[in-house]
Every structure is written in structure tokens, then in C-alpha cells.
């Protein structure tokens, strides 16, 4: 009985080695990959001075627009939105409005009056990579706002999730 053990083992082992040699021209690597959430937003710079300077007699002063700046975004998440807010409220009788051109598939809410709390500007942003999207500011002043010496506000745009 023991005499049979060695030949049987050789029969099992030899084909295994033969098979390994046959595959030596092949090498395997396991590649692990991952794509993390990415939400990047930037602007091209600051808009020009919004100078309310004229009116038609009998009407409120004319609104002033600036569309000289753009924004870019890269987002690989779904159902994102861009919100905006001011660091300080506008003077009484004045309004600063913002409109962003929407990236493909998203929705712009048009001109939105900015305040100290976040306002939705663009919604429904899904997995996009866009650049050069127009930012338009509109400054409105009532006659009773009076004369206002040059002032400024910081507008914060945020690419965020829908809450």
C-alpha cells in the first residue's frame, strides 16, 4: 500500500507544475480605483462698478447690469445647486440681484435678490464640467435710497447639495 502513495503523488504534482510553466508568459495585477465626490466652483474675477446714474423723469432710477464675469464648475455628484448670499444687507431702497447661466441639464432661477441668507440661484446640477458660464448682476435703487457713496458687498457662491 505505501508503495502506491509515491506514484500517485507524482501523478498529482507533475501536471500542476506543467500547468504553471505553461502560464508563465502571463502576469496579473489587481488595480484598485475610486472616484471621490468632487464639487469645485470658481469665478473669473470681480464685476465692474454697478453705478446707478440715470433715470427717466417720472420713473425710478434705471437698473444697472454687469455681465463681465463668469463662473466655472466641476461636479461629479447629483442634485447639486448653487446658492448665493451677501456678507451684509444692501442699503435701504437698494437691491442687488444675481442671475447665473445654468449648465446643461440644470435650471437657472433667473434674477434673484441677494440677502444675508443663502438663496438658490441654479438647481438640478448633475455631473457637469462647465466653464465660462455668465454671471449677471443687476443693481436696483429706488429714488428714496438717496445718494450712496461707493460701497461694496461680498457675494458668496456655494456649490452644495440639495437639503
Amino acid at each position: 500500500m505505501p508503495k502506491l502513495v509515491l506514484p500517485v503523488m507524482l501523478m498529482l504534482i507533475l501536471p500542476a507544475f506543467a500547468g504553471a510553466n505553461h502560464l508563465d508568459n502571463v502576469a496579473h495585477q489587481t488595480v484598485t480605483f475610486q472616484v471621490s465626490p468632487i464639487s469645485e466652483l470658481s469665478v473669473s474675477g470681480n464685476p465692474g462698478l454697478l453705478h446707478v446714474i440715470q433715470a427717466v423723469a417720472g420713473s425710478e432710477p434705471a437698473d444697472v447690469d454687469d455681465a463681465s464675469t463668469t463662473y466655472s464648475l466641476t461636479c461629479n455628484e447629483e442634485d447639486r445647486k448653487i446658492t448665493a448670499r451677501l456678507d451684509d444687507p444692501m442699503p435701504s431702497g437698494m437691491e442687488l440681484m444675481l442671475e447665473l447661466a445654468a449648465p446643461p441639464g440644470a435650471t437657472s432661477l433667473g434674477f434673484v435678490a441677494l440677502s444675508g441668507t443663502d438663496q438658490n440661484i441654479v438647481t438640478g446640477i448633475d455631473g457637469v464640467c462647465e466653464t465660462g458660464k455668465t454671471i449677471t448682476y443687476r443693481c436696483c435703487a429706488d429714488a428714496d435710497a438717496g445718494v450712496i457713496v461707493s460701497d461694496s458687498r461680498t457675494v458668496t457662491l456655494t456649490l452644495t447639495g440639495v437639503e
Partner: protein
Amino acid sequence: MRKSFIPVLAVIFAVVLGGVAMAGNTANQTVSFEVSAINELSVSGNPAALVIDSATAGSQPTFATDDSTTYAVTTNEEGRKITGAIDSAMPSGVTLKIALVAPTDGTSAGSVALGVDAVDLVTGISQLAASGKLITYRLDASAAAGVIESDTRTVTLTLTAGVS
């Protein structure tokens, strides 16, 4: 009769041994040899995880690379090449590329996108032994690809026949 038999045997022995001694300064052997086809390919290990986690606003997510692994190759044949393939397709919008530094006289195809069908990575490999040749992986993902949890693919490199 018995006394005369012994000298006769001694004479026969001497003649026979004398003949062997005369041929003793020459010996012939037939040596058979063979070198079989040898095609060996190995890698140093697995690359580190390729993680895409950043982008410049307005641009596609920044690709990730890894060049921490190498391959070694020995072949005594001519006109060999190394091909690469993955075990299953990459997710939509995600591309896994590989570039192999070519051994002497071989030609690297540069950074090549991997798919389930084998693609040429290095061609023109003939009768060489080389080790420590760099493997570079690159992972690209479009914004539309979305977020992808950790996943893996098995990359199979094969040293095979074929000039191109």
C-alpha cells in the same frame, strides 16, 4: 591436460586487455541538447489605489497615476509582444490606462486604454532578458461618471507572439 589449459587462458586474457589499453586515450560521447521556447513575464506586485478626488473648476476631475510597479521579461524567441486586458469593463466615463516602458529594442505603445479585449502595450520584443521596467497606470474619470466607491480590476499582461 589441465596444466596446458591455464597458459592458454592467460594468453587470451592478455590479448583482450591489451586491445582495451590501446584504445584508452580516446573516448567519444554523444551529447544531446535543446533550448525550448522560453517566454517569462512577471510583475513586482499590485499598484496602489488610484483615487480621483480633485478638480479645477471647469475642468474634468484630475487624473490619478501610479508608477510603483515594474515588470520583468525573458524571451528567447523573436517577434514577441506584451498585451494587456482587464477582466471586466470599466464604469461608464472612467478610463484605466497603462504604459509599459519598453525593454531594449522594443517599442512601447505609450499610455493605452485597457478593455476586456487585449491591446498591444509593447511590441518588437526579441531575445532579451530585462527587469525593473516601469509600469504606469492612469485613471481618468469625467464629471458625468459620478462618485465611484472603491472597485478593482484584474489586469492581465501577456507575453505572446506577434510583431504588431
